[in-house]
């Protein structure tokens, strides 16, 4: 599992790390219980500030995506993410809204927009 960050895009680096790890977990490249590199190692490997890595890990831990054992490393959490269904849906809603708005403005039909979601899910390998 290799992460890449690109400062030139202007997207905060901690968000880039968060989304890549979430993506890897959703796609099955990382599985429950897999070990993640330590903050120090990931910072040195990516040549980025350790505070940035720590911020990403803290956010992921708060979201229940990873868990940290004091002195024992960082792991992909079991039952990712441990949230109530309603909470999961609430988090997804802004993305759905964005998709709907952009799709409508591009004059795409409802079916064409929905098809894109299906295609994206297929590409992830339909882990459900």
């Amino acid at each position, binding site marked *: 599992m290799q992460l890449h960050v690109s400062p030139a895009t202007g*997207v905060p680096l901690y968000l880039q790390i968060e989304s890549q790890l979430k993506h890897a977990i959703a796609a099955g490249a990382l599985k429950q219980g897999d070990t993640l590199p330590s903050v120090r190692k990931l910072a040195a490997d990516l*040549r*980025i500030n350790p*505070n940035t890595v720590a911020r990403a890990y803290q956010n992921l831990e708060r979201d229940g995506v990873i868990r940290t054992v004091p002195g024992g490393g960082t792991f992909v959490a079991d039952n990712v993410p441990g949230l109530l269904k309603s909470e999961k849906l609430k988090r997804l809603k802004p993305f759905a809204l964005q998709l709907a*708005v952009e799709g409508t403005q591009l004059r795409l039909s409802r079916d064409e927009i929905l098809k894109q979601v299906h295609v994206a899910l297929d590409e992830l390998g339909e882990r459900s």
Partner: protein
Amino acid sequence: MSEFAILTDGLMKHYSETRAVDGLHLHVPRGSLYGFLGRNGAGKTTTIRTLMGLLRPTGGSARMLDMRVPEEQIAILQRTAYVSEKKTLPSSMTGAQLVRFNRPYYRSWSDASAAKCAQRLEIPMDQQFKRLSLGNRTKLCLLMALAQGAELLILDEPTLGLDPVIMDELLKLLIEDYAVEGRTVFLSSHRLAEVERVADWVGIIDHGKLLLEARLDDIRTEYCRINASGNALPVNIGPQILSAVFSGSLCEYVVRNDADNFVAELRSQGATILDVSPLNLGEVFLLLVRKEEPCTSGNVGATPAALSPST
């Protein structure tokens, strides 16, 4: 113990007519890797030389590691390592000789760190300093500073003459030996791409004053470029809308804070949003520094499209 490794309060250094440093308020958090950015002549080196006790401030005050500049300079120097803009060392000594010469001056000196640095940065340690290339001189100065094991590392243009491979190794060294150890690095540079990668705080200085000081990730979240098309797009440039460049029915906005609200407002007026993207450090730098020049008016962010109608 204060939370700041470097703190200045209205620091000033004037040379007869020139106000090289003009009321500077720096807040460098302990444990940060702080990028101090500015154009040539913006006041970076004067600030650093004043902090190091090489220049006497005209006004204001500064503290490093909670000690007063310049009254407690000796104690400050014991705990601070410095690479100056000139990159000079005694010219007839070799790297190995300089290591032996510098070692007894510092309680926290580490031969292991010197050896690691020499190996990683590929420094020829048995050549006289005067026979080294510019890049190798820079590297040897860096080695002397890194091996001191200081709590605070001050680097004035540390990337001068370094090739991309060595540059990469230097960033790795700074992260491994400084950032993850909770020590503070304060570096001035023009190389925004490198700073953008490793720094977590930046300060942008121009004409001796600080234009911006913030956590780098907050800067990335704060500044946004929005491309929109539509009729009667708003043109009022204010504190939130930093620039609006029109070409036909298209407009490129640069906004600060609350881009989401501005996008929603544009949409409610029937505009189509083509693209919303964050600004990188280089773009924010140009935006802030160009704003200081009187003649550029609204054309900040100078994209080719923005320049073409007027020229």
